[in-house]
């Protein structure tokens, strides 16, 4: 093929992007890995090598493991919730004959909110003295007095999770909706003629088509939620009593609160290793999905 033989020309096309990746991603990553073996303090420019000491301390620290499990709960809960709600919403939108445009427009709204506005809006609605929701529940005698959603240890994690699902479901909904439109209608009709019920039609026709498309989206979203610092930090600050402290927040506190940059770097290196392993496994799964023809 004539076009492909000129690979030197191709280099010019990709060079700028490659430069950006090397300068803006490779250097900082290497820099952080380097610092994880030192006792670098945020404020002092003099530091020393400490070998694997940071890693040992981190792996022995209860706070680290708490943050790790909180991160897992947070990511799994959020992504699953967003997927399920997004899927159900997309299916419902696909099904209704009228007003789907209006509904779709309304349902996309949360996606447009920046993290700081999400935090302010929900903290205002949930405020235990002036907020709408606690006062509403109290006025209707559903609760005894104003419940403090963000201060009650039983509720705070679930509430934060619900907010994250509120925010992230539209993304899945839109993508799944687009995927649903690629499913040929005649497959459903053929299946109905063959006697397949709703559940079977869903599992054997809808799911494979959608899976192919959103597999990568799922991975990206999972990584994003796992690494996200701002949303939870702005809503709860990681508290109370560390109940909503995820790994990024823990790393932030260590590096910028306690000023122990070396230790914080160690935390994120461990985080990175975990994600790389998890992502490698996930990719295998997704490429298997993509290679399976959707009949």
């Amino acid at each position, binding site marked *: 093929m*004539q*076009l*492909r033989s*000129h*690979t030197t020309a191709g280099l*010019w*096309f*990709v060079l*700028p*992007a490659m430069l*950006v*990746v090397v300068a*803006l991603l490779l*250097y900082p*990553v290497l820099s*952080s890995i380097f610092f994880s073996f030192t006792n670098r303090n*945020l404020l002092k420019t003099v530091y020393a090598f400490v070998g694997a000491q940071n890693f040992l301390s981190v792996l022995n620290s209860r706070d680290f493991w708490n943050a790790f499990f909180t991160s897992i709960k947070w990511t799994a809960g959020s992504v699953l919730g967003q997927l399920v709600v997004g899927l159900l*919403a997309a*299916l*419902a*939108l696909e*099904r*209704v*004959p009228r007003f789907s445009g209006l*509904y779709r*427009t*309304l*349902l*996309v*709204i*949360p996606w*447009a*909110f*920046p*993290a*700081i*506005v999400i935090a*302010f*809006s*929900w903290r*205002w*609605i949930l405020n235990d003295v*002036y907020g*709408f929701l606690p*006062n509403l529940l109290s006025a209707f005698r559903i609760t005894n007095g104003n419940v403090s959603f963000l201060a009650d240890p039983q509720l705070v994690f679930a509430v934060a999770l619900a907010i994250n699902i*509120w925010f992230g479901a*539209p993304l899945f909904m839109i993508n799944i909706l*687009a*995927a649903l439109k*690629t499913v040929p209608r005649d497959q459903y009709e053929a299946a109905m003629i063959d006697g397949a019920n709703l559940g079977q039609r869903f599992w054997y026709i809808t799911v494979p088509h959608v899976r192919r498309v959103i597999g990568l989206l799922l*991975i*990206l979203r999972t*990584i994003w939620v796992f*690494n996200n610092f701002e949303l939870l930090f702005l809503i709860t600050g990681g508290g109370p009593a560390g109940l909503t402290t995820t790994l*990024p927040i823990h*790393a932030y506190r260590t*590096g910028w609160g306690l000023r122990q940059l070396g230790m914080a770097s160690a935390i*994120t290196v461990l*985080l990175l290793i975990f994600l*790389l392993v998890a992502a490698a496994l996930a990719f295998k799964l997704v490429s298997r999905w993509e290679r399976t023809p959707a009949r």
Partner: protein
Amino acid sequence: MTRLLMNLRSYTVPYAFLSVLAVLAAFPLFWIVLSSIKSTPELANDPLSLWPSQPTLDHYRRVLFELGALTNLGNSLVISLSTTLLTIAISAPAAYGIVRFYPRVGQRLTQLLISTYMFPPILLAVPYTIIMISLGLSNTYFGLVLAYLSFSIPYAVWMLTAFYQTVPLEIEEAAYVDGAGRFRTFLSVASPIVLPGLVATAIYTFINAFNEFLFALLFINTSERMPIAVALYSLGGSEVLDWGAMMAASVVVVVPSIVFFLFIQKYIAAGLAEGSVK
């Protein structure tokens, strides 16, 4: 008539479900707009009122004119537009190049770019600050835009690769035979075909840059240069907690975002649908 009603009944479940979701989705927006026009005493003493007894635009006046939110909005626009333009200018050729010249590398490269997402932004921040100081870029829009390229370019390249793959080779070959060079082909032949994809990617990049918080907080030092998201945060830390002003400021930030989002969401859906058919 009865047939219509019978049909509607089979749709009640999805309609009911969608209605509940729609209320949940839209309520916060409704509520912050409502709260932003309530007077301060009313906000404190009448939490359940659905309409202000004395609507006031004081909070907006304060936020826009005394506190300079208009300036901050302008900053956000400048930063986001620059990021978008640079991202597309770098990513589109890169995506095209991968598709046309490095197809085998294409798959691997995509995975590699995605793995760049794994590193948490919080830790990129300190090395970035150090680089920017030494290049004299701290507290400049250019420095911030560069930092934004680190996450917008990988994603844009990934998105655009899928789109460029849909361009039929025959069209490009025809152009080549007619004497168009590689770059001309890319620019005038391939790119117009994937225009919806380009637009979708540009919008996505713009929104992410507009809403970005952490780097903006750390890299911009002067309150006049702050983009709107960070300016909003500093409002929460100021001397007197003024929920009314915070609500007005929130509305000021989110309404353009929503309007823009809605205006182009059909592009996103269309663009993604096209790109998803590989």
